[in-house]
């Protein structure tokens, strides 16, 4: 049982974020599949649709024979979309890791260090992903 205190508000917002980001990611995945089927004509295979839905970066459809990958599948709209999705997914994921670790790791100082390390990993993965989107997309 968690003791009631000032941390509960923070925990509540992260709990809420987990739910809200889940809804947004599910909607983004569904929208990605709809887009892939509207614009991919008949040339998209199932794995490419799935990769595109999961993360709509044009590399994910490059190995299919979609003819106009660059102008249609790579533009500012998808960059912003990808960045938002990357932010939601990485924060959802690393916050989930924190929740799991808090269940199994109890020494307070060690827990604080591990949580700091998780925050560092989050910034690393989010930063690297953002560079991929804006530098090589």
């Amino acid at each position, binding site marked *: 049982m968690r003791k009631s205190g000032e941390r509960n508000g923070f925990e509540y917002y992260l709990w809420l974020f987990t739910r809200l980001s*889940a809804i947004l990611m599910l909607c983004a995945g569904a929208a990605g599949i709809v887009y892939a089927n509207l614009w991919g004509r008949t040339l998209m295979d199932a794995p490419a649709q799935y990769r595109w839905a999961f993360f709509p970066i044009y590399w994910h459809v490059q190995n299919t024979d979609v003819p106009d990958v660059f102008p249609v599948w790579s533009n500012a709209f998808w960059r912003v979309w990808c960045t938002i999705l990357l932010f939601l997914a990485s924060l959802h994921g690393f916050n989930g890791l924190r929740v799991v670790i808090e269940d199994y790791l109890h020494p307070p100082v060690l827990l604080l260090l591990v949580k700091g390390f998780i925050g560092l990993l989050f910034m690393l993965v989010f930063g690297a992903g953002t*560079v991929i989107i804006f530098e090589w997309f």
Partner: protein
Amino acid sequence: MRRHRAGFWETLRYQGGIGAAVWVLHRITGLGILLLVSVHVMAAFFMNALDDPISTAVTRWYESRPVQLFVYFCVLYHALNGLRVLLEDLYPPLLRHHRELIWLQWAIFIPVFGLPAFFIAQGIVIGNP
């Protein structure tokens, strides 16, 4: 207040029934996505920045069929189970049908996972990466 520490095998022996099993699976699949997708993002970053053999090998490994099968399992299970948890949180009367919802979830999961998994395993849908 003494905290109870449950280990891995104790978790498996826990008599929580199907509810506990899907909860454990939700954690495992969530951690699986986090690990594999983070590795994939970092490998893609270093492959573009340095073009070194290690990140190329890691990317090849990530794109191999067994890993893709595992990622697909994790993403689909985590999404479906998360959707069920969401719906139950938004509309608590659904909890009366908790068990039936879990069976419905498996009824969706098995064909939606099984069919592409069969083709991935056969090497028909994706060509050699």
